């Protein structure tokens, strides 16, 4: 062995420990190492075999994003298939930010380079430069659009940054609600494969503008979307704005009208940019359509009749209870609600009092229209007969209070029919006191005037009052006086009902029954309404109807209520209500009522109209103010009946691209 190799052997002997025999101490370390290795292997196996699903799920949630797109709402049609509420396509030009990743990066580098070259001491932070880069790139694309359609829009940096931070996977809207020309121009000028695209969404459109505004209701935007059949509820979800019904039918039947949201699931990269193609995709589906019982011709006739007035009118199908028209004035143009109601418009609506649906929410003393119920109560109780006569001098004294006839023009012997025809208060005071408040109240409840009708609209009033002694004691802590009964018998005092209730009452009387359940949904096969009979012998019922017919032919509604070729049974009414402002009594406001049904020989339509006086102590007689509105409805109804409409067309909505 050479000297060198001997030296190597010596060193190796020093460096490498060799074991030529069994050493228990080392064996112990072997065991420790083995145990540690086994622990590691076990841990690895545990993580890989048993916790795979958990990690897989965590990876999925981290790497996938879901985008939900609302489905358009269903349409609303009138009973003849005419579109009342549809969807108008709304075109916007949008920018898909996730396709601009490279451009953002290049712009960022460029900005940084410029600052460095300029040796600017106030060089912005990386975050600020990123913000500048993003705005610059987006503005560059917006300028392309501006050039194409001749606009001068600018990027809102704050809005853009908010979009980046919370909705990056959604397209960023550069310009909304394009006109048809702009939309057409962009289609031809934008390259097919550009991050700039024309995006179509839907917005509510109301071809009849303000007609039936309170019935149809309106929608507001929401991001509360759910896509039932799209998986990934646990994923980070971006939601495009949808709509939710806020009033009227839109709110009441929101679950039916609401479209089914569609959606897409994308895989994203660590920076949050989408990776195409999508993993899952569902198209949005339009909500179900609804056909309402409203006849838009009658509705418009009612609203035209009430134009420039404050009031409400309800027309109802006597046999089915379907509402043919339900108008409340003042109203508002529903198109003002799309895409959103401006503050100024909202204020204007509030100041005019147009938010209130007077037909179902307004409660008013029914005035002399209530005399029909007093007459029924009297006839049923036997106190009144068609032959009952009262000799009046135009005044009636109860206790120390003198009640006078309205106008005081009818004196002498008044019979049952004449009392209705001329709306003679003293006749009803006299017999009303004999009938009694309890009987009147019971009869009112028999006609369901004390409760909601159950119409399919939100906010139907619960404030209707059928007063009696117990009610007065409980609410006013006062006793019931004969004067209260006198007032009650002519529909004054504390009695309060809605115009809808009055229309239902009239429909019930027309059918010879006591309850009419109104509905706003049209069903050609809807059965006839059937409730407790009115409980009057034929001759008494006939006398009542004759009295009501004479109201229109000779009585208080003869000038403004009659319609040629139609036999109408009606009753006018005028009630008073105190007007207060800032704690100061301004005087009495008059309320003009008119309720009727027609044709007498086979009743089909019942109407109730109320017009609110707006000037204290100014006369608003029912015959002069409310009857013309009912006449306008009846004229339109008769005109349509004599000239039946053509077969319903297929309800198609012509999208209006610009308003």
């Amino acid at each position, binding site marked *: 062995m050479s000297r060198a190799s001997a030296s190597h052997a010596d060193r190796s002997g020093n460096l490498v420990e060799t074991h030529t025999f069994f050493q228990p101490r080392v064996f112990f370390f072997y065991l420790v190492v083995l145990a540690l290795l086994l622990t590691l292997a076990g841990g690895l196996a545990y993580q890989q075999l048993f916790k795979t699903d958990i990690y897989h799920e965590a990876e999925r949630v981290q790497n996938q994003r879901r985008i939900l797109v609302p489905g358009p709402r269903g349409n609303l049609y009138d009973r003849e298939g005419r579109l009342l509420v549809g969807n108008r396509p709304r075109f916007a030009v949008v920018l898909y930010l996730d396709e601009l990743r490279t451009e953002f990066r290049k712009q960022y580098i460029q900005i940084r380079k410029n600052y460095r070259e300029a040796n600017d001491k106030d060089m912005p932070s990386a975050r600020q430069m990123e913000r500048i880069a993003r705005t610059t790139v987006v503005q560059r694309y917006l300028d392309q659009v501006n050039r194409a359609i001749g606009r001068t829009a600018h990027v809102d940096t704050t809005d853009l940054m908010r979009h980046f931070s919370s909705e990056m996977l959604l397209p960023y809207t550069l310009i909304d609600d394009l006109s*048809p020309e702009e939309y057409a121009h962009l*289609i*031809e*000028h934008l390259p097919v494969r550009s991050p700039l695209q024309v995006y179509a969404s839907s917005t509510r459109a109301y071809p009849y503008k303000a007609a039936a505004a309170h019935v149809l209701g309106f929608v507001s935007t929401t991001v509360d979307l759910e896509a039932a059949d799209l998986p990934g509820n646990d994923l980070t979800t971006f939601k495009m704005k949808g709509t939710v019904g806020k009033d009227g039918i839109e709110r009441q039947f929101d679950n039916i009208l609401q479209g089914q949201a569609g959606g897409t699931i994308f895989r994203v990269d660590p920076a949050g940019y989408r990776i195409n193609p999508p993993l899952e995709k569902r198209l949005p*589906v*339009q909500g179900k359509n609804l056909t309402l019982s409203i006849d838009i011709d009658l509705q418009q006739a009612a609203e035209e009749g009430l134009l420039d007035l404050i009031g409400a009118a309800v027309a109802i199908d006597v046999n089915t209870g379907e509402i043919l028209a339900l108008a409340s004035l003042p109203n508002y143009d529903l198109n003002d609600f799309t895409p959103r109601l401006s503050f100024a418009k909202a204020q204007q609506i509030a100041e005019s009092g147009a938010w209130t649906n007077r037909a179902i929410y307004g409660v008013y003393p029914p005035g002399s229209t209530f005399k029909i119920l007093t007459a029924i109560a009297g006839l049923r109780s036997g106190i009144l007969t068609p032959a009952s006569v009262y000799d009046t001098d135009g005044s009636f004294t109860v206790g120390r209070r003198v009640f006078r006839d309205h106008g005081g023009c009818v004196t002498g012997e008044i019979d049952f029919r004449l009392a209705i025809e001329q709306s003679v208060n003293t006749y009803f005071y006299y017999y009303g006191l004999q009938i009694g408040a309890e009987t009147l109240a019971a009869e009112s409840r028999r006609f369901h005037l004390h409760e909601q009708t159950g119409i399919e609209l939100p906010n139907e009033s619960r404030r209707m009052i059928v007063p009696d002694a117990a009610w007065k004691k409980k609410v006013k802590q006062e006793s019931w006086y004969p004067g209260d009964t006198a007032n009650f018998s002519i529909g004054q005092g504390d009695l309060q009902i809605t115009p809808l209730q009055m229309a239902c009452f009239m429909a019930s009387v027309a059918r010879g029954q006591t309850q009419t359940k109104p509905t706003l949904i049209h069903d050609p096969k809807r059965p006839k309404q059937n409730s407790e009979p009115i409980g009057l012998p034929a001759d008494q019922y006939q006398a009542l109807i004759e009295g009501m017919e004479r109201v229109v032919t000779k009585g208080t509604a003869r000038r403004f209520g009659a319609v040629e070729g139609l036999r109408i049974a009606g009753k006018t009414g005028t009630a008073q209500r105190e007007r207060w402002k800032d704690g100061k009594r301004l005087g009495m406001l008059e309320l003009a009522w008119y309720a009727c049904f027609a044709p007498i020989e086979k009743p089909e339509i019942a109407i109730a109209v109320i017009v609110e006086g707006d000037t204290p102590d100014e006369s608003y007689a029912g015959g002069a103010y409310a009857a013309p509105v009912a006449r306008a409805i009846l004229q339109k109804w008769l005109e349509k009946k004599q000239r039946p409409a053509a077969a319903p067309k297929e309800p*198609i*909505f012509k999208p209006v691209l610009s308003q």
Partner: protein
Amino acid sequence: MPSRRFDQARPFATLAIVVLVWLLLPVAVKSFLRVSFFEFEAPLEVSASYARDLQEYWGLRLHSNTDLIAAGRDMARLHAAYDNNIQQNAELRGQIERLESLLRLPSFPEYRSEPARVVRRDFSAWWQRVVIRKGKNFGIVEGSPVVFTGGVAGRVSEVRATTAIVELVSSPNVRLAAVVEGDTRPMSYQGGINPSFAPPKGNVEFMPLDIFATRTAPRRLVTSGLGGVFPPGLTIGYVVSADPSTDGLFKTGEVELDSRLSSLTEVTVLVPLEAN
């Protein structure tokens, strides 16, 4: 042995080097090379086209004198008819101008017609193009509409010195604002995925719901004129189906295009006058 192995790998190494050099080249140089390549290629294509024309010429020379006389007579008739149409058009144009000035309507952009021979057709599922024998030398500009006897042929997508590339209306890269004849609401037309030798088709989107079209009752689709590129009223094709989209907002439809698009020999470029 190693040198033999290198010899075997030499083509791959060369390719790798070329690719590397191409990747490292500045963008400006790459663009210049691309343009130069096409410009050098253009004379070959144009020459081939002229050769085809010559071939056609000699083919026609084989016709008898009787045939040629008959063709000449037909052509004379056609000329007379066209002369008449030109006069009528001039009269109508005068009326339109008067109405426009009376009603203060904006005038549609005017165009200069530039007929051009097709020198090459380039069809695939992803694009449908033709190369025409006129380019910058005839003032043709990018984006100009191109028409043929059947209506819209396409749009100029690239202009070179002596040639231009026309993206045909059947190409998925062409989109334009269209209307159904007799309607004013614009919709979006886009060429479809058209395999070679298949009848050309396109698609129409954002079609209003009250427009109906079937194969037995097709609707003529024409340019809207609203997009600012194509003049109004040019035939694009016929809508043969219209199906409502699930969201209930619009319909989408299939458009059958003129089958002559796949055998174009002559087109007319409408060069906007303001472009010159």
